[in-house]
């Protein structure tokens, strides 16, 4: 991990730890939702941003993880902490199967196959209402019972998000990450350099899916309810939006995007009313059309200038920044 990433992870955790005592209690829920989206989109960022597989069925995996967790807790009384693991493993396992299946297809066909998978999962969840509770949803227990349940859930979400962030940052700088980037950038060149592209494709896909499963299990235990709508097309739109706005294929992108789409949208709710999705869709169109890197690119473009200004301000030579 780079120094900046360690600093940012520490700052996020520190802010998260003091947030429940500073902000009103409704914000615990908003920040928990932020954690859910951050984990989910870190998974999608690994799949699309790192490995270059355009998966449109990513939201099926939180549904799989969440229902696995809820059903296990209901029928065999599994502890929620193991439930997180079980949800992640279930989603990862299905991810391996789908990953093996989509080795046959590329590009746009991949997008269609994964989308078809997500819709079939959604249809099955709605149709098998004796098992899954249908559109009404399925109840699940909290992490701990008692008055502190919400606070404990919040801290678990925060911890999971920090873990996901650290893992994705480590992956970004590791050799494994380089294999994934090679698969994304030029699969034929990667193959000829001896990268096992088939393995890394499946690995990238299943790894992202496993995080989505963990996110789904966390969502289920935190809100005590899971329903098929978390696997819908609108949710996929949100995932796409978050990663594109934040910056595709970057470490901070999902966190930044989730921050804007969940927390800033909540702040602005009073002024923009129901227009937040419309505004975000417009931002997304403009971002894709003009700044393809999202907010991360803007920050990367601006930050050298800011550093220059700062250095001038504290009296150092302008040249100092150019040497680094």
């Amino acid at each position, binding site marked *: 991990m780079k120094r900046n990433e360690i600093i940012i992870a520490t700052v996020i955790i520190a802010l998260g730890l003091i947030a429940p005592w500073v902000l009103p209690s409704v914000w615990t829920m908003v920040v928990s939702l932020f954690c859910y989206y951050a984990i989910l989109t870190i998974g999608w960022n690994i799949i699309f941003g790192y490995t270059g597989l355009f998966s449109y069925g990513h939201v099926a995996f939180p549904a799989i993880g969440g229902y696995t967790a809820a059903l296990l807790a209901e029928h065999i009384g599994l502890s929620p902490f193991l439930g997180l693991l079980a949800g992640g493993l279930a989603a990862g396992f299905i991810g391996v199967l789908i990953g093996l299946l989509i080795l046959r*297809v590329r590009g*746009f066909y991949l997008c269609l196959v994964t*989308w078809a998978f997500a819709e079939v999962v959604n249809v099955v969840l709605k149709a098998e209402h004796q098992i899954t509770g249908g559109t009404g949803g399925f109840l699940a227990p909290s992490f701990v019972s008692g008055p502190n349940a919400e606070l404990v859930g919040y801290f678990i979400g925060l911890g999971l998000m920090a873990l996901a962030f650290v893992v994705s940052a480590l992956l970004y700088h590791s050799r494994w990450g380089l294999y994934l980037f090679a698969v994304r950038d030029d699969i034929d060149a990667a193959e000829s350099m001896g990268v096992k592209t088939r393995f890394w494709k499946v690995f990238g896909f299943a790894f992202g899916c496993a995080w989505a499963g963990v996110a789904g299990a966390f969502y289920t235990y935190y809100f005590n309810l899971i329903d098929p709508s978390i696997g819908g097309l609108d949710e996929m739109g949100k995932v796409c939006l978050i990663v594109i706005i934040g910056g595709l294929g970057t470490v901070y992108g999902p966190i930044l995007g989730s921050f804007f789409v969940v927390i800033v949208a909540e702040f602005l709710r009073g002024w923009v009313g129901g*227009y937040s999705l*419309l505004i975000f*869709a*417009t931002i997304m*169109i403009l971002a*894709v059309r003009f700044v*393809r890197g999202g907010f991360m690119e803007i920050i990367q473009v601006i930050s050298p200038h800011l550093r220059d200004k700062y250095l001038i301000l504290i009296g150092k030579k302008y040249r100092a920044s150019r040497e680094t």
Partner: protein
Amino acid sequence: MLLELIIRGITIGLVYALMGVGLALLNGVMRIINFAHGEFYMIGGYMAYYSMTLLGLPFYFAVPAAIAITFLLGAVVEKLLLSPIHTQEIEKPMDYALILTFALLLFFRQLAIKVFGPFRHKPPDYIPVDVHILGVKISGNEVLAGIVSALLVLGLALFIKKSWRGRGWRAITLSRKGAKINGVDIGKESWISCGVACALAGAAGALVAPIFTLSPTIGGSPLVKSYEVMAIGGLGSIAGALVAGLMLGVAETLGAFYISSAYKDAIGFLMMAFFLLFRPQGLFGQK
């Protein structure tokens, strides 16, 4: 009962084919896919509704008006947002178009909720009498939708086969560079074909508006169906899209009745996944 289901399946299948043909055209000429295709369907339906209720036009003017408006909208979208695909060099045009049109889907849907309101609307019946075909009673609207869809698909096929512009489109589909060398203006043909593709979706929406009522979120299901039609029929094949649309329509109506109505939407997806994985070139496509 079987006959009735099959006739209903054929009518709805023709509308699916109309949606799928638009996508096939766009995929052939621009090499992209459009996730906002269903939203043009929704807009076409609303335009027909408003030209009938606000302007008081009869249906044989309202449907062409909806087609014209969606044509213009599609052309504007191409000019403003999709033109970088052929003017600038974008590294991955398919990914660019996927993300951009998905953003357009969200945008149009949210805009429709704000502009048209979240409530359901239903335009007046186009043909308020029932028609008897082979002893099966079918509403005039459905017959009209089926016939006009079939005519539009055939008309487009003829246009592409016979006219100079259609020849240009086929040339671009075969080889973009070759078409450019031989004097096809890719920028111009792109926006025209994008407009036509969107207009076909708008026509489908306008035609079925009195059968299925209108709401801002109706674009989702036809979008899905048009992808299934395109994937089953083969990318860029009009005959394939027609056959696939009919297959899908009949399979769905029969499946919904004999198997389970809850799994109706899964039938098309399973068909699509099967074709994509085991016959990726589709029914009539070449490898």
